[in-house]
């Protein structure tokens, strides 16, 4: 069991509210991702759940039990750090066994658990090495192994993949998702990368300046963003925003169209512009078009096309794929 409830949690550092007021219900077995730009308070929120920081006010409950005043050692959670935070003076075996040793688990049982974890994580051959003799991906696995042996109520991940190179990041992303499917334990995962959020999460919490902007499934966030911030943050390449007359036509302060929902034509369309940079990815091409009186817009087109820089083109949004926002940035429906 591992449901996590935050009730009006507030955290203030030296007079500055980092988390003004957050309430969240994370259900048992969920994979929840906290995502947001740097400094949005996502790591602080995770550390509050972990007990590494005191809440200024509000309550944190695990399985309905108030743990706000309990230290991190007594909450029964496990955490994987961005820096991996392995104990440099211990072997891989000792690192993974450390939480069991702290819990005074019988040695034979502990050894068995370490061996099991090592097998799952492909670490069996490295058990007697020190962390410094491991690669980044292996260190990450040791950190995960240390977290899983004690069968915590929930796993907390603090940007665990940001120190890995791109290819490894994709692999580890899949491994962690698989691990979640096997263990079915609650996971709370912090990242600034919306791709990680979209691909891994059951539900995503989008944070901005310590506020929850939206809490929902990846597709909910993609299809019906609650506001302009979420709309701009989720999706890649970023959503195009248009203001002024272009938006007025749709009775909105601003409108947004995702690059994949813009049609391009040489002959006719809603907005006229000139092709700037073309990024060819093979499968797709991103065209950056300077639209007269509106600005730079991104268009996603098929991989093979012959638009070239400087060419005059017409753009038009797909009907029904236009997001409208009011003056405060809230979505109009």
């Amino acid at each position: 069991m591992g449901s996590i409830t935050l009730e009006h949690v507030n955290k203030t550092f030296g007079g500055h509210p980092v988390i003004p007021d957050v309430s969240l219900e994370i259900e048992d077995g969920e994979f929840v991702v906290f995502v947001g730009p740097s400094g949005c308070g996502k790591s602080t929120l995770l550390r509050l759940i972990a007990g590494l920081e005191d809440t200024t006010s509000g309550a944190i409950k695990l399985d309905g039990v108030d743990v706000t005043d309990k230290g991190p050692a007594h909450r029964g959670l496990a955490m994987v750090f961005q820096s991996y935070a392995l104990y440099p003076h211990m072997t891989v075996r000792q690192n993974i066994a450390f939480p069991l040793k702290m819990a005074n688990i019988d040695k034979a049982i502990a050894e068995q658990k370490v061996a099991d974890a090592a097998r799952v994580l492909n670490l069996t051959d490295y058990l007697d090495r020190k962390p410094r003799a491991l690669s980044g991906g292996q260190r990450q696995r040791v950190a995960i192994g240390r977290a899983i042996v004690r069968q915590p109520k929930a796993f907390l991940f603090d940007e665990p993949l940001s120190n890995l190179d791109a290819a490894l990041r994709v692999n580890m992303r899949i491994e962690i998702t698989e691990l979640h499917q096997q263990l079915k334990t609650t996971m709370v995962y912090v990242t600034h990368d919306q791709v990680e959020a979209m691909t891994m999460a059951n539900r995503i919490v989008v944070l901005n300046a310590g506020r929850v902007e939206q809490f929902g499934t990846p597709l909910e966030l993609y299809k019906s963003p609650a506001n302009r911030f979420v709309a701009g943050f989720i999706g890649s390449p970023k959503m195009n925003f248009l203001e002024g007359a272009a938006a007025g036509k749709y009775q909105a302060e601003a409108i947004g169209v995702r690059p994949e929902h813009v049609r391009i034509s040489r002959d006719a369309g809603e907005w006229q512009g000139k092709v700037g940079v073309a990024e060819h990815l093979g499968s797709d091409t991103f065209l950056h078009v300077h639209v007269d009186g509106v600005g730079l817009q991104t268009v996603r087109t098929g991989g093979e096309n012959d638009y070239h820089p400087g060419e005059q083109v017409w753009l038009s949004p797909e009907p029904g794929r236009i997001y409208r926002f009011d003056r405060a940035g809230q979505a109009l429906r």
Partner: protein
Amino acid sequence: MARAVSTRRKLTMTILVWLVALIVFFPILYTIITSLKTEGEAAAGFSMIPSFTFESYAAVLDQQDYLRPFFNSVVISIGSTIVALLIAVPAAWAMAFTPTPKTRDVLMWMLSTKMMPAAGVLVPMYLIFLNTGLLDTLLGLSIILTLVNLPIVVWMLYTYFKEIPVDILEAARMDGATLGKELVYVLLPMAVPGIASTLLLNVILAWNEAFWTLRLSTDDAAPLTAFIASFSSPQGQFLAKLSAASVLAILPILLLGWFSQKQLVRGLTFGAVK
């Protein structure tokens, strides 16, 4: 990476640097050479070739008046270092791992106590020692050396502790370690190298301290600094014996320093130079 350097240039630099290094080392080298001469040879003037006799060492070691200061130096330098570490480790730990906005001020204040000139407070310290019976005792000298070196010890430990990532301590807490276990299983093993370097440097500083040890000891507790200082005027045929005594006084520290020079230089800069 470094570029290819012509062998000729490397040879020239090698000769030049070795020459400079030997000049810097020369006073020590010459002392060692003189200590291996007979008194007659030593008094005869400059010569780099001794007769390799150990009679001066035998003469110095034979006299009780050498062994006693040597023993005193060992006791006060190690004693004061251990006491300073016992006081400083908790303080440095607290400042490194639970820093507050005032931590830096506290550290600077500690260092500023070293700016207080020893001579400025010599008079009252002399009287306090005189009246409490601490004058010319090993206990008194150990107390003074502890106080004098405490700020340096705190600073050095602080810089070493600061290099231990806070993440790792937090990981231990998440893994269920209580404060005591966190200390024993995680922090101490990681802090040992830093504590060891601090210990070494402080023993060296205490061994070589030559203001308070000269002024607050007269006879019974006089360490090697005072013993050597008593050679300030020539006493008959004494040059070889003086050299032998000098070598004996600096040798333990020289060896200790050679072993640990890299960490020492780093430690002494309080982490300000990497």
